């Protein structure tokens, strides 16, 4: 099963001084994210498939996929719960 994540079009990001804020237009709620969170958020645009995303981030942060996978999954789950992204699942052949 392959998972693809989609950023919601109703979420806008903005930089305020040294912080990055994600704002959900639908809910009127906002979240402050750190540098790593921002890197993942930005990577989702070009690497929406989870496997690709993990590969890309492992290279970017010079780490093993197995090492970063739990943290990335937890972060993506948080983004899903907060309604900032959606996910679709496809059966792998």
């Amino acid at each position, binding site marked *: 099963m392959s998972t693809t994540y989609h950023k919601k079009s*109703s979420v*806008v990001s*903005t*930089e*305020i*001084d*040294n*912080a990055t*804020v994600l*704002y959900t*237009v*639908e*809910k*009127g*709620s*906002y979240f*402050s994210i750190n540098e790593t969170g921002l890197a993942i958020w930005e990577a989702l645009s070009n690497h929406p498939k989870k496997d690709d995303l993990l590969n890309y981030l492992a290279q970017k942060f010079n780490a093993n996929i197995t090492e970063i996978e739990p943290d990335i999954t937890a972060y993506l789950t948080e983004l899903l719960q907060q309604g900032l992204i959606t996910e679709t699942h496809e059966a792998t052949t």
Partner: protein
Amino acid sequence: MRYTEKMIRHYYYNQTIVGPKWLNTPFLQTKNATTSGASAPITVSIINDPAPNINFKQQAFSAGNKPLYFNNHLDHIQLQTEDIFFDILDKNTIHIYPGAKPPETITHHFWQSALLAVLTLRGGISLHANAVRINHKVYLFIGDSGAGKSTFTSYLYQQGYQLISDDCSFLTLASDGQVLIHPGKQEIRLYQESCDLVGLPIQDAYRTVKKLDQIKYCFAIPSTTETSQLSGIILIKKGKKTALTTLKDIEKFQSILNSVFAFSQPNHVPNPTEQFKKLTHLIQATPAITLERSADQNTLEELKDLVISYSQKEIKK
């Protein structure tokens, strides 16, 4: 009750409003109309028919103790409070279905809610904030209700500084990105305790309003008709001591966002993405500080000195 429409024109937030005479209040400037300004007049009509039966699905919230119901669309807004229905058909046209309410009640909700909704449709940003001109620069004072915005800015006014707006301030962005502030209503509203502190005798109040069962005294004040550039934002909050610090990062974002009327209520912003971009620009372009004040109200002079000194340093930069 039938309402007659003696059409006159009012100026408020630098907007021309054409509507029934009783919508005016004694402190508003009334002039002969001109449509030579940048904005088209806002035309207000009273509809004496029963209000359309609208199902308000979106959440209600309180406007001065009264529930206010909103339906927001991209290009028009409907709102209802105390059985008065405001149908804001577009950015130039308001239809008021007054029900059985008297002119004073309608007038109150018109200025408090309907006009702000039109200004949002016109692409501006309305904030719960006061503004004062200090050393030729205009500063916006934000903060929670009860933080002391009106008390402090009224104190500055009493010390000779020009009050641009009280309680509600209206901003727009110029084409070159400058943040502009428009003059607000020419009125200060204070509880008696604050009147005593800043030296405004309550017998000089031209009217009173009730808020949370407490009386607020309303004073007419001379203001300006000029639009000015906004120089800074000052967050007033209660603390243990008197202090001034830079307001930045997420706290800056949070404080300013929470002060914007439309954004303090989710789902009540027409075209929220566009509004958010404007708001982001405002936050990024405007320096901000936190002015902490101790619970002791007798620190107004000390607070004034801090703000004046901050303003002088900004000029030297």
